[in-house]
């Protein structure tokens, strides 16, 4: 077992444990930090899977953006005091049951799926084209989607600002 394999499984375990911790913990802040670990683990896995750009993006966007946003959201939507940021759960039994049920079903599907035998599956483990190829494809073959996603981001930005920014009088009264 070489170092690469050990690291790979390390990241897998990190991801898996942090995910389970999120599922288990009641503390939102802990969950947020566990989420960071998950993202890091994911980024690590992406590296091993030949998607270096995605790994970096994962860290930059998720950890640097979304996670910070989430933590800010937590802080803004909870009256912070000495008490812990604890979230309550309900329908826990059914939720767990459904989650386990879905997991069982999906794992059975994966077991029955035999993805290795798919035609297009390359078993040579050749390394990927890399960042250049990704950029080429993005700017040529997927340029329309790329532009539209940029527009989407703009719309989301404006929308978020519109929703969160303006406090109308009647709403504040209603509150």
């Amino acid at each position, binding site marked *: 077992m070489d170092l690469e394999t050990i690291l790979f499984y390390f990241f897998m375990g990190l991801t898996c444990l942090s995910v389970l911790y999120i599922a288990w913990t009641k503390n939102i802040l802990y969950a947020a930090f566990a989420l960071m670990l998950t993202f890091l683990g994911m980024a690590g896995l992406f590296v091993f899977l030949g998607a270096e750009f995605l790994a970096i993006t994962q860290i930059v966007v998720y950890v640097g953006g979304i996670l910070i946003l989430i933590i800010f959201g937590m802080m803004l939507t909870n009256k912070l005091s000495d008490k812990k940021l604890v979230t309550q759960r309900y*329908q826990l039994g*059914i*939720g767990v049951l*459904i989650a386990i*049920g*879905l997991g069982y*079903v999906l794992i*059975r*599907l994966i077991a029955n799926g035999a993805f290795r035998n798919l035609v297009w599956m390359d078993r040579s483990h050749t390394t990927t084209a890399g960042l250049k190829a990704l950029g080429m494809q993005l700017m040529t073959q997927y340029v329309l989607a790329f532009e539209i996603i940029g527009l989407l981001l703009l719309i989301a930005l404006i929308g978020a600002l519109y929703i969160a920014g303006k406090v109308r009088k009647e709403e504040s009264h209603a509150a």
Partner: protein
Amino acid sequence: MIDVLDILEPKNTHLLLWVLSLLGIPLISFLLSFFAGNQAPGIATLLIFINLLIATTMCFEFWSSETIIKGEWFATAGRQFTYAFYIDKLTLMMSMVVNFIGLMVHLFSVEYMRKDPCISRYFAYLGLFLFSMLLIVLSHDLLFLFVGWELVGLTSYLLIGFWWKKRKATTAANKAFIMNRVGDLGFLTGLMILFAQFQSFDLEVIKSLMIFSEIEQGQWVTSYLYAGVEIFKSVDGRWLSAAGIALFCGAVGKSAQFPLQVWLPDAMEGPTPVSALIHAATMVAAGVYMLARIFVLLDAQALEVVAIVGAVTAFMAAIAALSQFDIKKVLAYSTISQLGYMVMAMGVGAYTASLFHLFTHAFFKAGLFLTAGIIIHQLHHVESNKVSFDPQDMRVMGGLRKHMPYTFAAFLFCAMALVGLPGFTGFLSKDAILLNVAVWADLKGGGFYIPEVLAFMTVVFTSFYTFRMVFLVFFGENRLTRILGDGQITSQIKEGTRMLLIPACLLAILSISWALGLGFDAQDNWLVRALPTPIYLVPISYAAQSLVDVPDDVFKYLHPLVVSISVALALVGIIIAYFAFKPGAKMERRFTERREPVGALGQISFYHWYQDALYQKLFVQLIIWKSKGFDWIDRHMIDAFVVRFGQLQVIIAHIIKWLDRQVVDGLVHGLTLLVGSVGKIGRSMQTGNIQSQVMLSFLFLILLILIFAF
């Protein structure tokens, strides 16, 4: 064969105006007096005076004729009903008497009732009475007669209860009315029997058909034509007697005969002039008059009943009159007794004597009542000062001869007529009755001597109670002084005014036989000749033996005997009365101290043979017991049943309620619950919680995969 409709043909309708005026004037008096207020006495008296003139004119006009006035009234169920009036000597004399005494009473009442606030009502009732009485007198149709009969009953009721604030007066009025109803029930039964047999109430029809009816093997058979149709009626012969007795029941009620006579003494609660007019002279004589009209329809058996009832009544009432304290009560019992004489005379077939006595009695008894009225009136004036006593009670009288001599004279004349002393009208008529009774008793023999004995005994009692009254009221010293201890009070008693004295004195004068042109001999005066005894029309086998058929020798032989015996008995009565009640006598002195007479005879007399108490026990108590019984049945059986039934209903209702609530409602509730729970289940899925919905969608996704992928 006779056709009934032929007899019912209208006739003499041009003479109807006479009758209508005779009937109409009292009716106008009735209507006018009601609204005339204080003018009522004058108007009523004037109208009755006019009516008397009309009656007198009619006497001259129709004296020797027997006129039937008849016309159609109405027809129903194939039967013709007519009005019919009969004008003969009897009706003319009767209407004369009614109008004359009516006028006297009107005149008397003007003074007597002057201070009464309801004087207009009083004179209105008098007018109504005269109308109804004349209707009885004139009508020749039993239905009309019955109408008049009921109307006099009504006016009698109204006038007895005239002072309706007195409780005794209203109860007396009720008693009179109810007693008369009992009699009228009999009368009505008689009418029905006769109508069933003859299909008409017309007396002419009944008499004409009665002649042709026969008794065949105990069956009363009548056959005649009615509008050309032959009618054949055959009933048991006893119905003939029953009809007579039933009609006599009416007379028993109206003329106060045993056993219905108890109402008349109580009727004295009415005003005294009313007692004179209605309860002495006219209305109570209506029964005797009615018997005279149906005299020819009575068979032997019915006549026997009539005779015995009359005799018993005469005797019983005479006994009752012996011990009364109330002067009007004495006169009332005396009236009953004299009516008993009349009825008895009718029963023995002495038609003439009976009616003769009716007329004479009308005058002297009205006179007695009016003089008694004067005494009461004058004593009442004394009473009204500061002392209170019963002005009708003889215990407060005595010695009034000095205070009111004219009244005394009038009273004495009338009393002598009542006793039957020679020279007075009563002597003639009573003598005639006694003679006829004696002849009848000889004819029949056996137990039929009893009425004769009773009749002669009544003579003694009559003279005794009459002169007892005379001595107690007019002789000696006034007992008011003794009772009240006030010597001055007697000086306040004064003679009655002229308005009171004139009618009383007129009637007293008419009690003298010569004043009526009757002479001294009973057997042969104009009045007797004017009213010959008619021949019985009932089938021969049922008819009584007529006294007309008795040879004159028998009468001639018995007459002196009867006269001497009756006069002697009357004198004996007077002498006993004198020794018992002369001033200072033992009984006279004790008289004021007694509340009621002592001794068995005295008690029986005072309480009128306890007849009232008997009726109270027999009928009133019986009805009360019966009512109590029914009340018990009602309460304990019917009510209980109703209550049980109600309870059953409640129980059933509860069961139904339970069923309703548990089953029917349960069904509905169950249904709603089902729908509700289904809704709740459906609702619970629609939580509005997005997480639950996500959960569900994933659940179904799992199920889909499970179903399709494996």
